[in-house]
């Protein structure tokens, strides 16, 4: 096994008496999709926040591409190669699709400190943004304001913005949510290819997609990882079945 | 050009060149809206009473909202658009400092019906600037003289801004006795419990304070309720007719210095008080008296000289030949008043809280800054 690009070591986080994250370790190696699943309230959001830098863990470390980023903020981690999409779209709603993607290009170029050149006239940034939009199939909507996009289109735009950053690692929070059958199928194909560029830590509720896509799956229950393994291993794991039965049926 | 300006312009044209040569156009910038409007309204009403029926005086009035930048803008308007010859009306020292130097530099006459910052009395004096009210320090200098020897240790209090510091400096300049303490409060302060506690604890025999407008009302009411019984005095600004009604019995007995009082027994004063009351339904204040005197002074000069002959008009103003409701009135070389300043006491006449004169605090008082003035 190659060295992990994202290595989460024994993260813990408590809110008062509640242990939201208990000693969680996870690794993401090049070329894989590692899915994180778990019932509602298992602590997935808290864990993602700690990985992305929105929340400081009480203990443990986050290693990104060999570098300890535990003490860094969200923006620093993004610059070091963490590409993230959100469960609830976090986009500049008044801006167009292209402008949102351009924001990604500006971030990737690490240069927002230019005040007088029109950003839309920068051919290099624009090319990068347009390429990303095209990859997710939003080129038709390039000049549409985000507020006028459908829910599914916004998910795609989230991915497109992450693509502009050319990240080392993707952290995707429920990219399939609200996409519908056809959209989910397209996204599944897309992510399947994307893993070759950079591995994906995928948090997803859609179990069909998870089991179709994931190389490995970790199951988070009550803040703890109760199992990690291939889809087959997880399917057969008794603890997982106990945790999940009655909630969702594993395919 | 606004409709109003158009109207004004038409009037000037209609009156013809003859009227222009004889008459004088006066621009009054004063505070007519907001919290400080009472003073401006008194000055305006007093002035209008004095020039009522005088066809030689054309008056333009504007509201400065007590904002220096608005006052400057209005002064520009008066000078550039209305083409006034004489300006007057400003109540506050800081507004006067913003307007007067530029106006006099442009050859306009300015008659101050209130406020006399020391800068305009000394080095910054100007041949076209006439102060018809008082230099800021005048009342407190007179009070210092009058209280010397009888007040013992004095506790001084004023807001922390130039006029407050000037007035306290005026008192200290003439007071021959000990100052127990000197306290400067925040401008606009409304609660004086802390200062009153200091007064109670200090060994002062007497309180001398300057708190204009609402600040004085708040202080006097709170002082009355505190049980501290040291005698209180101050310049007339905190005990004037416009605010005595709001202080009520709490003010009774307080001594204050002023150049005028409604019971001052000089020719014309009783008539002025009656006429003002008849016209506006309230008693005149010192501000109204100052406005009235300013109007009389202007009318006296207009009767003698043509404003287009600036030297003659200036000389006519300097002579100050009018019957001031203050009695004696003349200008010192720096064009600031030489006048008597009286000690007044707040009394109750029936239900009415008002002032009466109890003595003369200073005779032929003039300000100490004239020495620096090169006129």
């Amino acid at each position, binding site marked *: 096994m190659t060295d992990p690009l994202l290595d989460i070591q024994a993260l813990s986080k408590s809110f008062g008496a509640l242990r939201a994250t208990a000693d969680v370790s996870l690794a993401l190696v090049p070329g894989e999709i590692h899915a994180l699943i778990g019932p509602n309230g298992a602590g997935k959001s808290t864990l993602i926040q700690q990985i992305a830098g929105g929340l400081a863990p009480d203990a443990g470390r986050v290693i990104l591409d060999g570098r300890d980023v535990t003490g860094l903020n969200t923006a620093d981690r993004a610059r070091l190669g963490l590409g993230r999409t959100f469960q609830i779209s976090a986009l500049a709603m008044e801006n167009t699709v292209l402008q949102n993607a351009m924001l990604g290009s500006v971030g990737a170029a690490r240069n927002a400190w230019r005040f007088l050149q029109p950003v839309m006239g920068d051919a290099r940034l624009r090319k990068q943004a347009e390429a990303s939009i095209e990859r997710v199939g939003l080129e038709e909507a390039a000049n549409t304001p985000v507020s006028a996009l459908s829910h599914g289109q916004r998910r795609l735009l989230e991915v497109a913005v992450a693509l502009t950053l050319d990240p080392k690692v993707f952290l995707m929070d429920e990219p399939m949510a609200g996409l519908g059958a056809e959209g989910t199928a397209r996204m599944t194909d897309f992510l399947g290819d994307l893993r070759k560029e950079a591995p994906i830590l995928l948090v997803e509720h859609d179990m069909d997609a998870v089991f179709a896509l994931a190389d490995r799956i970790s199951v988070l229950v009550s803040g703890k990882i109760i199992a990690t393994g291939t889809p087959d291993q997880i399917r057969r794991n008794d603890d997982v079945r106990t945790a999940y039965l009655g909630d969702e049926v594993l395919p | 050009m606004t409709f109003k300006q158009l109207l004004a312009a038409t009037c000037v044209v209609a009156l013809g060149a003859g009227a222009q040569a004889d008459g004088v156009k006066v621009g009054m910038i004063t505070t007519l*809206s*907001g*919290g400080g*409007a*009472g003073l401006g*309204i008194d000055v305006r009403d007093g002035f209008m009473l004095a020039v009522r029926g005088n066809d030689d005086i054309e008056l333009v009035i504007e509201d400065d909202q007590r904002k220096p930048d608005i006052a400057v803008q209005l002064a520009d308007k008066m000078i550039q658009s209305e083409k006034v010859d004489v300006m007057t009306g400003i109540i506050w020292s800081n507004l006067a400092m913003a307007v007067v130097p530029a106006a006099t530099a442009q050859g306009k006459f300015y008659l101050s019906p209130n406020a006399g910052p020391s800068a305009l009395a000394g080095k910054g004096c100007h041949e076209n600037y006439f102060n018809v009210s008082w230099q800021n320090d005048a009342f407190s200098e007179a009070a210092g003289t009058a209280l010397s020897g009888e007040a013992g240790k004095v506790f001084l209090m004023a807001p*922390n801004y130039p006029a407050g*510091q000037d007035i306290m400096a005026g008192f200290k300049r003439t007071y021959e006795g000990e100052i127990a303490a*000197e*306290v*400067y*409060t*925040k*401008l*606009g302060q*409304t*609660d004086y*419990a*802390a*200062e009153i*506690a*200091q007064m*109670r*604890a200090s060994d002062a025999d007497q309180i001398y304070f300057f708190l204009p*407008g*609402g*600040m004085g*009302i*708040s202080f006097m*009411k*709170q002082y*009355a*309720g*505190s*049980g501290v019984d040291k005698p209180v005095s101050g310049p007339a600004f905190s005990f004037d007719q*416009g*605010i005595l*009604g*709001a*202080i*009520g*019995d*709490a003010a009774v007995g307080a001594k204050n210095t002023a150049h005028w009082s409604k019971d001052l027994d000089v020719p014309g004063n009783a008539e002025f008080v009656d006429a003002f009351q008849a016209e506006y339904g309230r008693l005149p204040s010192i501000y109204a008296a100052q406005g009235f005197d300013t109007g009389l002074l202007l009318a006296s000069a207009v009767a003698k000289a043509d404003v287009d002959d600036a030297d003659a008009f200036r000389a006519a103003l300097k002579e100050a030949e009018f019957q001031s409701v203050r009695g004696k009135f003349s200008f010192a070389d720096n064009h600031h008043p030489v006048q008597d300043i009286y000690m007044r006491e707040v009394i109750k006449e029936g239900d009415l809280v008002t002032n009466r004169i109890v003595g003369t605090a200073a005779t032929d008082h003039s300000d100490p800054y004239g020495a620096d003035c090169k006129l």
Partner: protein
Amino acid sequence: MTTLLLIEQVLNGLQSGIMLFLMAAGLTLIFGVMGLINLAHGSLYMIGAFAAAAVAAATGSFLLALIASLVAAAAAGVVIEVGVIRRLYDRDHLDQVLATFALILILSEGTRWLFGSFPLYLDVPAALAGPVTLPGGIAYPAYRLVIILVGLVLAVGLFLLIGRTRIGIQIRAGEADREMIAALGVNISRLYTLVFALGAALAGLAGALVGAIQSVQVGMGEPVLILAFVVIVIGGIGSIKGALVGALLVGLTDTLGGVLLPLALSGIMDASSATTVGSALASMLIYVLMAVVLIFRPTGLYGTA
């Protein structure tokens, strides 16, 4: 400075804090429940004081004057809420600031138009005039003790109202989630009018109580408004407890700063510059306090993000 004087000054600080609390409580309630920045709160304070002065002059009864202040300010509050404020709830803070600033202009000048440009007379009732002697020999104005008492009673009353009553539950629910409370079948627009009237009545009462020992004049509300904002921001917006703690902190800082700073500075400079510099610094002190609190607690002492 003697210990006794220091104690008296602390008492003065607490008392001025309580006066501020009366004003700040309504402001923080309105902000907490409706998310509204109401600059016109100072005008309601002024309306209360003018109503009290007018009724006291007509009837000679201070109690009737207080009732008048409550009624007038609450009525004005209802009119303003229904006529203007209601349209501002879903606007951003900027629109609220501008609209309520416009209301200040209208209400201030309207009051001046009705009552004239000169300050009005309103005095403490004869029974409360003059000082009482406290243990330790401090002579303290009786009326100020009554203000402290009224303020504390109102504070307790508000805590009970919010914590224990049906209306309080609705208010708290409204703070948390507007849709939820509407879904529960509560008439939200009536609730908002009620809360606004309550806040207005508190401001009006504060105006009347404070007006008796201060100056009842047009524009009296604005300095207090700024102070009340300082108070609720220090305390954390929406928190009654924060408003109380913030008010006491501001009252103490303002009072003691004005007394102690010139004293402290007289050790390092001559007396006259110590008084001017000291009082200059003292007038900035509460704003420094607010800035420091916000730098370390960006949502105030008891605020939630």
